[in-house]
C-alpha cells in the first residue's frame, strides 16, 4: 500500500478537488441516512395523527434532502472529472518520456507489451482508484460509523443485533481476499500466456501454414484457454461464496431485528416509526458494508498498479555530460580496447567484444565483416551509445563519445539499421528524421541515392502516411527509406548495418553506385555480409573472436587473410592455411 503514497506528487494538484469530492459524497451519503429520520417523523406525526397540516414542511424537507443528494452526487463527479483525467495524462506522459530515454539494454529486458499495460490499464486503475475507491473508502466508513451511531440512538438493543454478523463477515472477507487474489494473479498470467499463443500464431502464420501445423497450435490454444476457464470458474466459486455471505448474513440479522423490534413495539418500548426508521437505516447501510470489501480489494489492485508503474519510473536514466569539449587533432573514429558483453550473457562465456582496436580515417569508408554472430551489429550500436562498452573507449574526431551529450553525438552519427523501422508519419517526415532542417532538395537527393523512386508512385507521393497507421511498405522499400534517412543530413559519421540485404541484385547495384558518391566525403562504418557491399569500402576490417583480426583493402585481405577469403568466397579455410 505504501506505493500508493507515491502518487501524492501527481495527485497533489487535484487534492482540493478530491477533498471536495469526498466532502460532497460524504454529505450526500449522510443525507441519505437522514431520509429514514424524516420518514419516521412523517409516519409518527402527521400520518399517525391523521393531521396533514404538519405534512408539508416535512415533505419539503424530504424533497430538499433528495435534491441535495442528487446535486452533491453530481458535483462530486463533476469537480474531479478534468483534474483526474489530467493526473492520468501526466503519469502517462512522464512514463512515456522516461521510457524513451532509458537505455536500450532496459528495453531488451522489457517486452513492449508489459510497458504498454503499464501505460494503459495500470494508469486506468490508478485514475479509477483516485476517483472512486479512495473517495468511498473514506465516505463509506464515515457513513457506516454514522449510520451505526444513528442505529444506537434509535435503539441500542436492535443495533447490537444488526452488528452481530460484522465479526464473521470480517473474518470471511479476509480469507476470501487471500484466495481470490491468488486466483486473480493466476488468471492474469494465464491470460498473458493465451495472448502470447495468439500473437505467435498470427506472427508466425506463414510458417504454421507452410508446415500445416496450425492444428498443433490450436491444441495448445485450446489447452491454455481451458486452463484459464478453470481458474475463472474457481474465481466465480469464491465470488459466489463471498456474495452469499455478504448478502446473507446481514439479511439474517435483519430478520432478528424484525422479530425483536416487533416484540419491543408490542410492549410499547419502541414506536412503529422508530422501527421503520431503524429498518430503513439498516437497509441503507447495506451498500457501505458490502462495498468496503471490494473497495479494499480495489485499493490492493491500485497499489500493485502503482508498484508496476514506479518499478519503471525508478530505473536510473543515463546521465549526459555537459557539452563543449574541444576536439583534438586525432580525426576519424577510433575504437581503443573496446570490450562488451550483454548484461544477461551466461557467466563464464567470453566477452562478445574482447578488446577491439580500430581506426576509421576521416572521409574513409570502412567495411566491417565477420561471421554470423561475431558482434558486428553490436559494435556499430556502441557508436551512437545505444549500448555502453564494458571497457575501453571510442573517440570521434578525438573526443571521447562519453564526453558528448547524447543528442549532440547522435546528431553527428547517422545510422541505418538492419531492421528498417518506419514511424507513423509521412514518407518525407520519416526521411527528415535524419536531419530535421534538410531542404526539400536534400530529401530528393537522399531518396535518389537510395533508389527510392517508388515514392513517386505512392498515393500521395512524399506525403503518403506510412508506418503502423499508414500504408504498409515491403521490406525492400522500408530499407531504402531507412537508407535515405541515414544519408539525408550529409552526416559527419555514418553507420550502415547491412543496408542492402533486402534488395535484389539490380537495385543493389544502383544503390551502390549512388552510395559511393555519398560515402566519398563521409567517415563511414558499413557492416557487410557480401562481397558486393564490401566493394563500397576503401578498407575492410575483419571481426573475429571479439577482436579485429585483420584490416586492409579487399584485395589485400583476399591475398593475405585466409579467414577473410573463406568469408567472402566460401573457399574452405584449409586451402588458405595450406598455402601459407
Amino acid at each position, binding site marked *: 500500500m505504501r506505493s500508493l503514497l507515491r502518487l501524492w506528487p501527481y495527485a497533489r494538484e487535484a487534492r482540493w478537488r478530491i477533498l471536495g469530492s469526498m466532502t460532497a459524497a460524504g454529505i450526500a451519503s449522510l443525507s441519505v441516512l437522514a431520509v429514514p429520520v424524516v420518514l419516521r417523523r412523517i409516519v409518527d406525526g402527521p400520518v399517525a395523527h391523521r393531521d396533514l397540516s404538519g405534512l408539508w414542511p416535512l415533505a419539503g424537507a424530504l424533497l430538499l434532502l433528495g435534491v441535495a443528494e442528487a446535486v452533491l452526487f453530481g458535483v462530486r463527479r463533476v469537480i474531479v472529472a478534468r483534474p483526474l483525467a489530467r493526473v492520468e495524462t501526466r503519469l502517462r506522459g512522464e512514463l512515456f518520456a522516461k521510457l524513451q530515454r532509458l537505455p536500450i539494454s532496459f528495453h531488451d529486458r522489457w517486452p513492449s507489451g508489459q510497458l504498454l499495460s503499464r501505460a*494503459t490499464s495500470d494508469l486506468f486503475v490508478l485514475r479509477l482508484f483516485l476517483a472512486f475507491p479512495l473517495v468511498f473508502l473514506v465516505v463509506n466508513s464515515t457513513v457506516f460509523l454514522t449510520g451505526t451511531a444513528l442505529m444506537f440512538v434509535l435503539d441500542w438493543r436492535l443495533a447490537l443485533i444488526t452488528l452481530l454478523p460484522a465479526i464473521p463477515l470480517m473474518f470471511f472477507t479476509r480469507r476470501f481476499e487471500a484466495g481470490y487474489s491468488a486466483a486473480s494473479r493466476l488468471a492474469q498470467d494465464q491470460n498473458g500466456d493465451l495472448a502470447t499463443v495468439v500473437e505467435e500464431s498470427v506472427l508466425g502464420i506463414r510458417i504454421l501454414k507452410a508446415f500445416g501445423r496450425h492444428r498443433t497450435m490450436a491444441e495448445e490454444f485450446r489447452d491454455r484457454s481451458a486452463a484459464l476457464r478453470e481458474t475463472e470458474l474457481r474465481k466465480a466459486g469464491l465470488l459466489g461464496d463471498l456474495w452469499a455471505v455478504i448478502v446473507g448474513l446481514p439479511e439474517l440479522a435483519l430478520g432478528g431485528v424484525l422479530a425483536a423490534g416487533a*416484540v419491543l413495539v408490542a410492549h410499547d418500548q419502541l414506536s412503529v416509526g422508530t422501527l421503520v426508521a431503524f429498518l430503513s437505516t439498516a437497509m441503507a447501510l447495506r451498500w457501505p458494508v458490502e462495498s468496503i470489501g471490494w473497495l479494499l480489494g480495489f485499493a490492493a489492485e491500485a497499489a500493485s498498479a502503482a508498484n508496476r508503474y514506479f518499478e519503471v519510473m525508478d530505473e536510473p536514466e543515463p546521465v549526459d555530460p555537459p557539452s563543449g569539449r574541444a576536439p583534438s587533432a586525432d580525426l576519424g573514429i577510433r575504437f581503443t580496447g573496446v570490450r562488451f558483453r550483454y548484461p544477461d550473457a551466461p557467466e563464464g562465456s567470453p566477452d562478445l567484444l574482447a578488446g577491439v582496436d580500430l581506426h576509421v580515417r576521416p572521409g574513409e569508408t570502412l567495411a566491417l565483416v565477420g561471421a554470423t554472430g561475431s558482434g558486428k551489429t553490436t559494435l556499430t550500436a556502441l557508436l551512437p551509445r545505444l549500448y555502453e562498452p564494458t571497457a575501453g573507449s571510442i573517440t570521434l574526431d578525438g573526443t571521447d563519445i562519453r564526453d558528448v551529450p547524447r543528442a549532440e553525438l547522435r546528431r553527428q552519427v547517422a545510422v541505418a539499421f538492419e531492421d528498417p523501422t518506419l514511424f507513423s508519419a509521412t514518407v518525407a517526415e520519416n526521411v527528415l528524421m535524419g536531419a530535421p532542417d534538410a531542404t526539400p532538395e536534400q530529401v530528393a537527393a537522399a531518396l535518389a541515392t537510395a533508389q527510392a523512386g517508388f515514392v513517386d508512385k505512392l498515393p500521395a507521393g512524399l506525403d503518403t502516411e506510412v508506418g503502423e497507421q499508414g500504408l504498409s511498405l515491403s521490406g525492400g522499400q522500408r530499407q531504402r527509406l531507412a537508407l535515405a534517412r541515414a544519408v539525408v543530413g550529409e552526416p559527419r559519421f555514418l553507420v550502415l548495418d547491412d543496408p542492402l540485404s533486402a534488395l535484389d541484385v539490380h537495385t543493389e547495384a544502383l544503390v551502390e553506385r549512388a552510395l559511393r558518391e555519398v560515402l566519398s566525403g563521409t567517415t563511414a562504418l558499413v557492416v557487410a555480409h557480401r562481397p558486393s557491399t564490401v566493394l563500397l569500402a576503401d578498407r575492410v576490417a575483419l571481426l573475429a573472436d571479439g577482436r579485429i583480426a585483420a584490416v586492409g583493402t579487399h584485395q589485400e585481405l583476399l591475398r593475405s587473410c585466409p579467414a577473410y577469403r573463406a568469408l567472402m568466397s566460401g573457399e574452405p579455410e584449409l586451402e588458405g592455411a595450406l598455402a601459407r
Partner: protein
Amino acid sequence: MTTAVAEPVTEEDDLLPPAADNQDIPVPPGAPRALLGSLLAPHRRRIAVAVLAVLLQQAALQTGPLLVAYAIDRGVPALRGHDWGPLVAVTAAYLGCALAATLLQRAFIRLAARINQDVLLELRGRIFRHAQRLSLDFHERYTSGRIISRATGDVDTLRELLSEGLQELLMVCLSVGYITVVLVVVDWRLGLAALASFLPMYLVIRSFRRRSQQVYRRSRTVSAGLIVRFTETMNGIRPVQAFRREAANDEAFGAVNRQSATATADGLLEMARYVFLSRLTANAWITGVVVLGAFLVTDGSLELGVLTAFVLYLRRLYDPIDQLAMFLNSYQSAAAALEKISGLLAHEPSVPEPAEPAELPAAAGKGREVVFRAAAFGYADGEQVLPPFDLRLPAGRTTAVVGATGAGKSTLAKLLARFYDPTAGSVTLDGVDLRELSTADLRANVVMVTQESFLFSGTVAENIAVGKPDATRAEIEAAARAIGAHAFIAALPDGYDTDVRKRGGRISAGQRQLVAFARALLADPAVLILDEATSSLDVPGEQAVQHAMRTVLAGRTAVIIAHRLSTVEIADRVLVMDRGRVVEDGTPAALIAGEGRFATLHRTWKDSLV
C-alpha cells in the same frame, strides 16, 4: 501488438496492392446478433435455470419489506394479545427468505460464470481457428495487431459485459419487474404513481445513451491512437534514440495524451450528468409518493404498514439505476467488439479446404511432379500479376527462378504452396489439383521456406521440431547438423534447450534462417520451395546450406527463388522471369553460355565476387 520485425521482408511484396483498408472489413448486417445468438444457443437450458434462480432469489429478497409490513400490521397487534404465532411465522419466513436468497445468489453466480466462461471459450476458439484458416492474402492485409486485439481485447470487453453487465441487467430488470408487481398489488393507486416515474427515467437514460455514445466513439479512436504511438515508439526504440526523436515524440504523444484526457473527462462528465438527473427524478418521485400515501392513510384507505413497505420498495426501485449506466457503457464497448469479431468471422478464406479431398497417388520416388496448366494470377482490382502460363516441374528436379523485383517469382511460389489459388487454370501435384488436396496432405508434401524467420517461444529444439512434431532429439540434431546450424546452437547457453525468447533478440537473422532450414529439412517434403531463404546468410553460411542442399534435394522436387545467383548453381534448370512471364528457360550452363539476361546477370555477379 505488431512489431516491424515480424513482417516479411520480401521485395516481392511490392506486387501487393496497398493495404489501404485502414477500416475494418465490412460486417454483414445482423451478423453481430447472429453471432451472439449462436454462442448462447447451446446454453439455452442453463440460461433458463440461471434466470429462474435469479427470479426466485429476487422473490426471496424482495419479500422482505412485505414481511416487515405484515409484522407491523398483524404481528404487533397479535403480540399485544399475547399471540406469538404471526410474529414467529413472519420471522421464520424472513429468515427462510434470507437463507434462500443467499443460496440462490451463490448458485446463480456459479452458473452464470459457467455459461459465461463456456461462451468465451467457444468464441476465443472460433476466432483463433478462423484466423488460422484464413488465407495468407488476408493476413497480409489485416495487420497482426488487429487479429490479436480481436482475440484478446475485444473478447475481454465481451467478458466484462457477460460477467458483470448481463448479470446486472438481469438483476435490474427482475428487481424492477418484481417491485413493480408488488407495488401495483399492494396498492394500485400508489403503484401507478410510482410507475409514472418510468417515463422521465426513460428520457434520462435515452439522453445519456445518445450523448455517451459520441464521447465513447471519440475516446476509442483516441486511445487506439495512443496505443499505436506507444508501441511504435517502444518497438523502434533504437532508431528513436539514434535519430533523437525523444523530444518530438514527447510532443506528438503529449497531443494524443491530452486528447485522451479530454475524452476521458467528457465521459466522466456525461456520467455525472446522468447520475444527477436520475437521482433527482428518483428522489422527487419518492417525495411525491410519500405525500400521496400520507393523504391516503389519512383518508383511511391505506394502512400505515403498507405505506412503510411501499416507501422501502420505492427506494429499492431506484437503487439499480446507477448500475444501468455502467451496463450501458459496457454494452456499448461489447457491441462494438462483437461487431468487429463477427466481421472477422464472416470473412471466408479465399483458399478453402475441399469438402471431399482427393487422394494423392503413391509417390514413385522422393519427389512429385508439379504442373501449372494455363495458371494465372491477378488481384480483384484487375491487376494481372501472372498472365496464363504453362510450366512442368518434373519430379526430383531442382529449378531456380530468378528475376528482378516484381517479376512474379514469389507469386509463382505462393501458387505452388497454395498460399493463393490461381485466378484461372490449375496447379497439380502428381496430377491432383492442389485445390482438391486436404490441408494435411498438401502440407506434408509441399513445404515452403521463406525469407521470414520467425521463432516461436520455446527452445531451439522445439522450433526445429515445428517441421515434425514427433521428431526425436537425434533427428533434430541431425537436421541442424546437415544444414550447418549445429555449431552455433551448441554454443548457445543451453544448447538446443536455449529459450529463444530470452535471448531471441540476439539470435541473428542469419541464424534464424538456419533454424528455418533445419525445420524444413526435418519435415521431409516431396516438394520444397525456398523463397529467398538464404538472403541473410553470409557466404560461408550460404555455402554450407548449398552443400547440404545437394544431398537434401536429391530426388525431391525443389524450387529455389533467389536474388543472389550463388544459390542457382545447384539447380538443374533456371527460369528467368520478367513482368510475370518466363523469358528464359534452360540449364544453368546453357544460359550462362548464351547472351540472354541470365548471362549478363551472371557476369555482373561474378565480377562482384573478386
